Structure formats: structure tokens, C-alpha cells
């Protein structure tokens, strides 16, 4: 397969466009047309970011296991709007659109068109009205649609989600509120479906949020426009940031399974629902895809290499019973976390000579459902697991995939 970077691809485009005498806007149309051909008319992805640190985009950019980011963006998915990665910005002159390509107006084109698209959301959605601002959601403005105003993340998210085929909440911030929703924040940051563990206070599910500026979005909970009786199918890919495999695996899986746009438009409501059900991943707690961790605690998923290393304190054998015999058998990799008394396991003390469980030092792995201990991070070879992970390097698991991150998962360096 020809491997080119996105930068090279755009250089080829600009050389070709220059030779053809095309302007910048037409250049972007060339880029878009090529991308569309390559992805065979697949469902486009619109990615908007709110109260974010862009870590989720960076994690996406570091994907290696399934595919690299250039292959993903050029060959696999049709990412139409992501302001961190897209090549040019739109511009407005004297209040009217001068350069609409790759601006928020292009994203809104999909919303207005009635064509199916997948919405990816990064960063929390802040619903509080700032003092001296223009109303709810004004803590985060993400773009300009008219050349004179600012669109809030709250308004744009609720609007775009109401007509999306599916919504992917990338990261803990857009799944649960995350760090912007930490105790003490003044901005009422919400995830799409959930705020913390509450599933009725999300940006899409909170009935107390008033109607949006963009027309056609009802007040309160948002309905899936193609079938008003259903709520928006939201997949929460939580993590701070989520592992690139979780993001890419879920996105590519959904978009590879969905039929092309032309087919989708010809489906009846029931057939469309069936196509979506086939494309969306099976979900575990809080709508998180069960294929990518989120099912087992970190201690079990890998399993964590340190849990059997205590030479002092209690040891547990494969059936979960206390076993202080001299050597333990190689752990049964599929077994579940020992029932009962996880506090005791986390409290195993360790001496200077053995590398034991870090729970006593604040590792929240036994409260965190993720598969970092299995998949690890920073893989540099395709289709191989990563080099290391937080706890493997003797750091603490911070519990960043949990809905209660960073508050109830607790102080990071204290055993809780």
C-alpha cells in the first residue's frame, strides 16, 4: 500500500491545484473529493471539541495498532471537520462567509443537508451561563456561522447530535464531564449523556436545558431525528485520554460496518435501526464499548504484573482464597478479581525489595475498568500491544475512565 503522510498528500494536492490554476477554496474541494472517493462515499464524521485539552485528538493521532492516523484519515474514514487537524480555517469578511471550506459552516452543511453523519465530541459541554456573557454555554464558543456571532459548544452539540446517525463521546470529558466537572468548577461541565454517574444531567439528557439558538432542536432531552421515539445512540469512549485503539477501533468498526451514504438514504426506518444496531458496538456500563476494556478492573485485565508479587502480607491464589505458601503458581490470566476484601489486597504493604501492589500508594486500578494493563500504551509496531502502561512503570492508575474521575475516584496518591 502506498504510504504517504497527510502533509505530503496536501502538498500533492496543492501542486496539482497550482498546475490547474485552482484557488484555495477549490483546492479544498479537490481534497474533499479525493477523500470522498477513497472512502467510497462513507458516512462522514464531524468532530467538535468543547472544554477539551485536545488530548483525545492527540491520542487519535498516535494510533498505531489498528492503523496509523494518515491511513485512517485518508483511506478509512471521512473526517470532514476537526479544527485541530484540518488544513485551513474558514474566514468571514464583513459578516459574510468568504472561505467556507473547512470552517464550522462546512460542518453545519451536514446538519442542514439531511444527510447522515456521525458526530464525535471531545471535551465537556459547559452549560452554565458566565457572568457578563450571552447566556448558557457561553463559557465555550467553538466557531462562527454568520461572521458576526459566536456559536456555543452547548448549542452546536445539541443541534448536531439531534440529527446525527450516532454520536461518539470521545474521552471522559464528553462521556461524563471529566476534569472540567471536578468539584469546585463553576461551569457546570457535562458529558453528553452523563454528568458524573447521573444519567439525567448530561448535555443531551438534561431536561432543564432550554431550547437552542439553532432552530429545530427541542428543549430538554434530544431525540434521534430519524426516529423520534429513540434517544440518540451515544457511545462513550471514556478515558483521559482514551487509548488510541479504543477510539480507532470503535470509529473504524462503526464506519466500516455502516453501508455507504447512498444506501443509508434508501433504507426504511426499521432497516436503518437494524443497520445501526449492527454497526454500533455492544455496550457495557455507561454505554462504553465492551470490546475495548471497560469490562474488567485493571488488576484483572492484564492482569497487572504487581498483584502477585507481594512477599509480605497476604497472598491470594487462583481461587481467591488466602494462600501464604512459598510460591504461587503462574496466575490464571482469565480469572476474576478476588471477591471480597479488595481493600485488603490494595493495602498489602511491600518492602524495599519486592515490587508489590501499588494500591496502598493510591493506585486506583482496582476501581477502574479499562484494559490498559493488557493493551498497554505507546505501541510502535502495528498489531502489537504497547510498550508499557501507567502502573507497569510503577506509577498509579488514576482511574481516568471512570465516571467519577477526578473526584470520587479519589485523591491520586492516597489509598481509598
Amino acid at each position, binding site marked *: 500500500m502506498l504510504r504517504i503522510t497527510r502533509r505530503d498528500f496536501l502538498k500533492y494536492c496543492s501542486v496539482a491545484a497550482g498546475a490547474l490554476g485552482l484557488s484555495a477554496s477549490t483546492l479544498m474541494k479537490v481534497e474533499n473529493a479525493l477523500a470522498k472517493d477513497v472512502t467510497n462515499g462513507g458516512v462522514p464524521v464531524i468532530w467538535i*471539541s*468543547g*472544554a*477539551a*485539552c*485536545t*488530548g483525545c485528538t492527540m491520542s487519535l493521532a498516535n494510533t498505531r495498532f489498528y492503523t496509523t492516523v494518515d491511513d485512517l484519515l485518508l483511506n478509512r474514514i471521512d473526517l470532514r471537520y476537526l*479544527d*485541530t*487537524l*484540518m*488544513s*485551513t*480555517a*474558514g*474566514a*468571514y*469578511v*464583513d*459578516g459574510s462567509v*468568504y472561505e467556507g471550506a*473547512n*470552517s*464550522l459552516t462546512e460542518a453545519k452543511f451536514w446538519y442542514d443537508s439531511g444527510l447522515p453523519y456521525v458526530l464525535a465530541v471531545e471535551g*465537556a459541554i*459547559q452549560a452554565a451561563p*458566565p457572568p457578563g456573557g450571552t447566556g448558557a454555554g457561553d*463559557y*465555550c*464558543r*467553538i*466557531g*462562527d456561522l454568520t*461572521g458576526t456571532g*459566536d456559536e456555543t459548544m452547548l448549542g452546536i452539540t445539541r443541534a448536531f447530535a439531534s440529527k446525527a446517525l450516532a454520536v461518539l463521546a470521545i474521552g471522559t470529558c464528553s462521556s461524563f464531564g*471529566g*476534569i*472540567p466537572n*471536578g*468539584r*469546585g*468548577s*463553576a*461551569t457546570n*461541565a457535562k458529558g453528553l449523556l452523563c454528568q458524573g454517574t447521573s444519567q439525567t444531567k448530561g448535555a443531551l439528557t438534561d431536561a432543564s436545558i432550554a431550547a437552542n439558538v439553532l432552530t429545530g432542536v427541542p428543549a430538554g432531552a434530544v431525540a434521534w431525528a430519524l426516529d423520534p421515539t429513540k434517544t440518540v445512540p451515544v457511545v462513550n469512549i471514556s478515558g*483521559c485520554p482514551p487509548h488510541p485503539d479504543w477510539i480507532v477501533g470503535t470509529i473504524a468498526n462503526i464506519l466500516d460496518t455502516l453501508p455507504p451514504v447512498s444506501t443509508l438514504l434508501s433504507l426504511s426506518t426499521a432497516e436503518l435501526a437494524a443497520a445501526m444496531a449492527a454497526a454500533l458496538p455492544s455496550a457495557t456500563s455507561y454505554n462504553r464499548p465492551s470490546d475495548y476494556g471497560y469490562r474488567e478492573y485493571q488488576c484483572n485485565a492484564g492482569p497487572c504484573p504487581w498483584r502477585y508479587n507481594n512477599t509480605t502480607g497476604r497472598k491470594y491464589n487462583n481461587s481467591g482464597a488466602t494462600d501464604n505458601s512459598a510460591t504461587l503458581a503462574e496466575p490464571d490470566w482469565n480469572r476474576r478479581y478476588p471477591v471480597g476484601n479488595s481493600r485488603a489486597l490494595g493495602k498489602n504493604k511491600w518492602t524495599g525489595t519486592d515490587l508489590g501492589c501499588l494500591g496502598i500508594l493510591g493506585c486506583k486500578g482496582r476501581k477502574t475498568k479499562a484494559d490498559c494493563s493488557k493493551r498497554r500504551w505507546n505501541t510502535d509496531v502495528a498489531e502489537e500491544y504497547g510498550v508499557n502502561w501507567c502502573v507497569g512503570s510503577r506509577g498509579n492508575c*488514576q482511574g481516568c475512565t471512570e465516571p467519577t474521575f*477526578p473526584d470520587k475516584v479519589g*485523591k*491520586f*496518591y*492516597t489509598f481509598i
Partner: protein
Amino acid sequence: MATITIDPVNRIEGHLKVVVQTDTAGIITDAACTGNLFRGFELIMNRRDPRDAPVITQRI
């Protein structure tokens, strides 16, 4: 004479809006940048274990 607005500025981390005013000769007479996001990390870090500070701040 013309007001040029770029919103959002792309290829950056975060949200930024740039407004530029030019006169008839194309000379820029006024320019403003707006940072379009407030999360309040100082408020969030208040009353926490101080060892949590770098862990939370790294997400800025």
C-alpha cells in the same frame, strides 16, 4: 474598511478567534484575538490534596 474574522483558528490546541480590521489600502488598523474557552482550573484545584495538582493541571 474590511473586517476579517477567522473563527475558529485551526491547527491549534483549543479555541481561538481572530478579528482583523483593515483600511482601504489593506493596512491592518486593529486586531483582536479571543480565547474562547474557560474551564477554571484554579477553581477545580481548590481544596484538593496538593499532590493532585500536577495530575489535574497536565490536562490543561
